[in-house]
């Protein structure tokens, strides 16, 4: 499926590297703010002309230290203008910035520094300098460490260290005698030079350095700019790690291409305040940020007066009814429109103001599944929140949700210049200029990720719906089939279940079976609250989990998921017929979860094989004895006679209302 949106060519003539864009903006809009940073309580602005001057000084300074074309420059720190300048300076010299996570411990940094053979690093402050010095013995190639913040650095006399300020002084001196030095270096750059190296998180094996060219990120940035009609007037708050592909695209690449303003918060703790002060027009956050914001609002509303609470809940209902339709320009009856207008005046407007979201034109979320209620809440109060889908290897996005065509369960349409096709096994394949050039020094991994036709294999299973929207279902290797040929996607089912606040974890089974089954962990806090309100006594998790009322509560959730599945012709056969609530919480100490709290399905399937067999055999109860590891390392045994419940399933094609 080739997309035809790509009207403009991928690159503009003369603007095929990031340094050329920088100089372009410095000439075209010298006084326009390129970056702001809150310091000493005031937003300090740097215009494009100032940024260009500073970048040239850093570049010349680096060259003085012996930085050559193709050298790697490690960049470590919070989002700071000077670190963004260092990226640009490095690119001016034809070097490759290697972005590193600032919260990594020293030992984790060693691998990246060794792998990328880094000789120069620009770091934010004393904390990062200490880490670099700590591992100096293992990184013998390192020659110079340049630090931005002088605080606490007075007594460091390591010969490797140099402040960014003195580096710039060195550079300016060089530029006095050789004013066109940096321009000459920029002229040597080419569109297919590597512009940045971003390390993948490495959940499987060692992290890999993804090499992206100028062309890749510029195309990607231009694609998204066209897609959402962004201009130089946007404001974005850069607060997500600089080493993450999302920040590199949204803050660095798009801002440098479109010429809009990057705003750096004062510190990690002040982000919410800074967000309010800046009022960005373009915003990105992972789902948990949106979730935290909503929770904070709800908690504060609980403490508000009765009148305010009633107004709030009334207008939220109004917004739920018609907010999303108004946002997407669909017809809405005049009475509802009037109500919504009133709501904007009294509730939504002030609320958006408090959240710092009243100027937002476009907001994106990605990185994890976002709950439909959460997503709809923001859209209903008039915030144009959308989802995207992509990887580090594709410059952050492959698909974006177009304005006015938001579907909860799809990630939208392929962006401009992106070609997406579905392989025979259901895997999503991507092609286009935004693909990675290679993994650094890993031809084996590169060959594994790119197939013979030049498609990047995402490892995700998905399909296009009738409107051409991509639906991502699961990791391709996890997807199976039920006996009747329906697609069985365990993660997809589990996510659907976990969106219910009463369900904390779910594990589903069904590959090669006639139907699907599920283990459920209830959320002790949420279900506990619910039980208290209902006056149901309980002594602890195990007791609560075995209550009939709780089984009833969970059955409703499972049936709702089944109704959803029935509506999807591809998955209607994979409805959950039997489920049980586990007598213990899944725990990383018992090996059931990874340390990042992902379920280890195969391990669980082995450990609880008796229960799974019983579910598929349709038994009503099953006895099980399992080992548990206590936090002090002792091992004990728990046994339980678990009840297995049956949930209603629905005929294929039945809509939700009919159910």
């Amino acid at each position: 499926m080739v997309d035809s949106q790509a009207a403009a060519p991928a690159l503009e003539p003369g603007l095929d590297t990031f340094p050329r864009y920088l100089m372009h903006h410095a000439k075209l809009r010298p006084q326009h703010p390129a970056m702001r940073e809150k310091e000493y309580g005031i937003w300090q602005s740097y215009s494009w002309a100032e940024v260009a001057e500073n970048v040239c000084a850093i570049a010349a300074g680096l060259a003085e230290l012996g930085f050559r074309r193709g050298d790697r420059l490690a960049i470590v720190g919070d989002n700071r203008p000077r670190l963004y300048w260092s990226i640009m300076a490095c690119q001016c010299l034809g070097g490759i910035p290697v972005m590193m996570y600032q919260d990594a411990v020293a030992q984790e940094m060693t691998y990246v520094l060794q792998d990328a053979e880094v000789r120069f690093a620009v770091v934010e402050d004393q904390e990062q300098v200490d880490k670099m010095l700590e591992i100096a013995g293992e990184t013998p190639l390192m020659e110079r460490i340049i630090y931005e913040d002088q605080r606490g650095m007075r007594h460091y006399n390591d010969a490797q260290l140099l402040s960014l300020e003195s580096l710039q002084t060195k550079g300016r001196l060089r530029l006095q005698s050789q004013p066109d030095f940096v321009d000459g270096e920029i002229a040597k750059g080419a569109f297919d030079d590597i512009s940045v190296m971003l390390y993948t998180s490495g959940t499987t094996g060692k992290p890999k350095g993804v090499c992206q060219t100028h062309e890749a990120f510029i195309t990607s940035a231009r694609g998204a700019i066209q897609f959402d009609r962004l201009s130089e007037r946007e404001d974005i708050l850069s607060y997500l790690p600089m080493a993450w592909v999302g920040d590199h695209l949204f803050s660095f690449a798009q801002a440098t291409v479109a010429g809009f303003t990057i705003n750096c918060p004062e510190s990690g703790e002040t982000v919410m305040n800074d967000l309010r002060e800046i009022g960005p027009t373009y915003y990105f956050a992972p789902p948990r940020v949106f979730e935290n914001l909503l929770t904070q609002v709800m908690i504060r509303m609980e403490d508000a007066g009765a009148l305010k609470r009633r107004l709030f809940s009334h207008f939220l209902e109004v917004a739920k009814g018609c907010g999303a339709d108004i946002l997407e320009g669909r017809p809405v009856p005049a009475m509802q429109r009037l109500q919504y207008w009133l709501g904007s005046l009294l509730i939504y407007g002030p609320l958006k103001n408090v959240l710092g979201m009243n100027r937002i034109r476009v907001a994106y979320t990605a990185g994890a599944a976002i709950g439909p209620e959460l997503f709809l809440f923001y859209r209903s109060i008039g915030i144009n929140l959308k989802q995207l889908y992509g990887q580090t290897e594709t410059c952050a996005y492959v698909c974006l949700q177009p304005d006015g065509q938001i579907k909860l369960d799809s990630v939208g349409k392929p962006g401009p210049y992106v070609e997406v096709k579905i392989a025979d096994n259901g895997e999503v394949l991507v092609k286009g200029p935004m693909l990675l050039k290679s993994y650094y020094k890993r031809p084996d991994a590169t060959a594994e990720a790119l197939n013979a036709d030049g498609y990047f294999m995402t490892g995700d299973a998905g399909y296009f719906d009738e409107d051409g929207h991509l639906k991502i279902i699961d990791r391709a290797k996890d997807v199976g089939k039920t006996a009747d040929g329906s697609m069985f996607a365990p993660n997809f089912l589990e996510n659907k279940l976990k969106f219910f606040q009463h369900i904390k974890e779910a594990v589903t089974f069904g590959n090669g079976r006639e139907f699907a089954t599920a283990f459920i962990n209830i959320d002790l806090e949420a279900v506990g609250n619910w039980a208290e309100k209902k006056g149901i006594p309980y002594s602890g998790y195990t007791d609560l989990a075995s209550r009939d009322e709780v089984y009833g509560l969970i059955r409703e959730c499972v049936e709702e998921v089944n109704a959803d599945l029935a509506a999807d012709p591809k998955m209607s056969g994979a409805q959950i017929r039997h489920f049980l609530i586990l007598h213990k919480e899944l725990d990383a100490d018992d090996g059931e979860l990874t340390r990042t709290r992902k379920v280890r399905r195969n391990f669980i399937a082995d450990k609880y094989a008796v229960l799974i067999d019983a579910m598929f055999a349709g038994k009503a109860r099953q006895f099980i004895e399992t080992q548990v590891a206590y936090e002090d390392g002792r091992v004990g045994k728990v046994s339980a006679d678990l009840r297995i419940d049956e949930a209603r399933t629905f005929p294929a094609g039945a809509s939700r209302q009919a159910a």
Partner: protein
Amino acid sequence: MDMTDSSQLAAAENSGRRRFGDIILDLQNISLSFGGVKALTDISFNVREHEIRSIIGPNGAGKSSMLNVINGVYYPQEGKVFYRGAERARMEPYMAARQGIARTFQNLALFKGMSVLDNIMTGRNLQMRSNIFLQALRIGPAQREELAHREQVERIIDFLEIQAYRKTPVGQLPYGLQKRVDLGRALALEPQMLLLDEPMAGMNVEEKQDMCRFILDVNDEFGTTIVLIEHDMGVVMDISDRVVVLDYGKKIGDGAPEEVRNNEDVISAYLGTKH
């Protein structure tokens, strides 16, 4: 920074990278009593410029009385106080402030209802020159002056890493942060000598580590001489250049942390028996 780091740092600085100046404060044979109660008996010690000097001792040893003598709150019945070479006459505490001595309090003395920013701003009062009417109307020189002071206060906020609480009323902050604000207000005075009364009291380990780092940073960045009273021996030994030990109003030890740690009298005062 963890504790081992700070101790290494202190050790490194003791090894002579930092320059100590002349004696800035000299206390000679100080005795102080309240009625029949002798709080301090014949105590002599001095403080050199740029050093971190600690006064330790068990409860009721006379530490706070000693600090109050330095601060000019109490005037000793016997003995002499030389500050910057001049003998000090009886005086009011505000005169100590004018001479460049600032302090923090064991039981915080902040304005709970005022914001962090305003609390630290009060520390600048002494430096404000325009009169109260101009200040109230915020016109002319008063506004320029306020801007300059605000900038100074912002630097302190940045230094103490409390940007996130700038506008928060102090009463809503956790105790450890209130202590930091208290320190900020003392710093706003741009003192030459900073008296800290149990800066670590009631803090958890992490807050203590933070406070240690700030004390070392203040001393290092601004060259401020610091006299501190502290209960927590570990902390004191890690960050001090020299330590005075008091017990029942008498001096029982004085010197570098290592010497004091091995001093028999100090051990028995703290542990109650000789080993």
